[in-house]
């Protein structure tokens, strides 16, 4: 089995075995959405598409932020990060495996969040939701790419858990803009062609930060 899949499989196995991450992410998403419903007071129906879009992405960011810090947690506690660095695996490959695991957990939380959005904002379960899938997937991928890299830094800095949001949010802004606009349009019934400009930004964002993370991760996991 390739080293990438070995690490990924190990992370997924750990998660199934009683990792709290995914459940906590879903719970956070739910709580954030409830807060937003009270805050935004939606009347219901497609007039609320922009609010629903915004809420969905707020939930994504919150959940992702909390989940991101934990990506390297398993390795930090038992020192296994040293064993991983010592092993023949490439730090870049390690990055991709961690990122893939984070992405999967985020998508699970996102699926739950979309369901809740439809219920809370009185939208309908129809084909328009399919338009959401690429937007959310690209957004989650970009967030995971950023977060895996940044969390490796903030996890080793004093008060790093406070620093992580400060770093991630401004960096994520382009994807956030594209994601919210695109989601709003999709919920209002736009076709894939209309969403193209937003999808292009998300794709560019993802390519950029996946590459950056891939190249820079090795500088972030070393020791003094």
């Amino acid at each position: 089995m390739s080293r990438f899949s070995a690490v990924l499989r190990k992370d997924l196995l750990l998660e199934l075995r009683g990792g709290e991450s995914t459940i906590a992410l879903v719970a956070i998403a739910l709580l954030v959405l409830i807060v937003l419903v009270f805050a935004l007071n939606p009347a219901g129906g497609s007039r609320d598409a922009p609010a629903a879009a915004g809420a969905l992405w707020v939930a994504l960011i919150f959940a992702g932020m909390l989940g991101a810090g934990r990506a390297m947690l398993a390795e930090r506690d038992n020192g296994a990060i040293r064993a991983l660095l010592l092993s023949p695996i490439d730090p870049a490959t390690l990055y991709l495996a961690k990122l893939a695991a984070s992405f999967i957990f985020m998508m699970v939380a996102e699926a739950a969040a979309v369901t809740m959005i439809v219920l809370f904002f009185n939208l309908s379960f129809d084909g328009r939701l399919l338009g959401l899938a690429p937007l959310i997937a690209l957004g989650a991928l970009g967030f995971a790419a950023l977060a895996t890299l940044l969390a490796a830094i903030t996890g080793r800095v004093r008060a790093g858990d406070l620093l992580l949001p400060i770093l991630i949010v401004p960096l994520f802004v382009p994807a956030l803009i594209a994601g919210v606009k695109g989601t709003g349009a999709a919920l209002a019934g736009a076709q894939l062609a209309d969403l193209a400009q937003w999808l292009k930004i998300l794709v560019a964002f993802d390519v950029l930060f996946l590459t950056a993370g891939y190249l820079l991760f090795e500088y972030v996991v070393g020791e003094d």
Partner: protein
Amino acid sequence: MFTSIYMVFAWVPTEADQGIVQRIFYFHVPCAWVAFAAFGLVAICGIFYLWLGQQVWDDLGYAAAETGMVFCTLVLITGSLWAKPIWGTWWTWDSRLTTTLILWLLYGGYLLLRAMAEDTPQVARFAAVIGIVAATDVPVVIVSVRLWRTIHPAVLVTRQGGHGLQDPRMVATLLLAMVAFTAMFAWLLMLRFATLRVRTRLAAAARDLNLAYASAAEL
């Protein structure tokens, strides 16, 4: 350098014909140029630091970030001061100001990291990575914010009204201001850089001194 700055102060008042407030433009635009360019410098220094491992690149990058932050803050302040009399609000979400705000937050994140963490080569590497990632983000921010703003033109008026530079004297003033502010940035940068270099050399000297003490103690 100083003379060029003072020339700008003296010259500009004789040039403006669109109302006194518009003169802020000559401060605002050069500051913006400097703020963005400085961030590029931070990223370039980051790349060199990661590649070559020499402390001088980290010192230059840190100095650039601190100096650039000052100018970025000035952009936001001058933008605010300009917006209030012209449009009656302290802040507008137009594409350029928004992008500058994001840049300001990115600067802030970089500086916060360095302030909160200790002064080790490892942290310098972290900062270099953050600088590089943030700088790659900026173009995407620019594009996406512009796209965001063109969908909602109603809320705001473009500030590009100032770009109809009819009078060639205004163009000249602007160019001179650009040069002057770039010079000021470079000067402040060198000051800050020199301070950081001293700090680095002191740390190396302390280390060597300790080694010497330890060896002497063995004799």
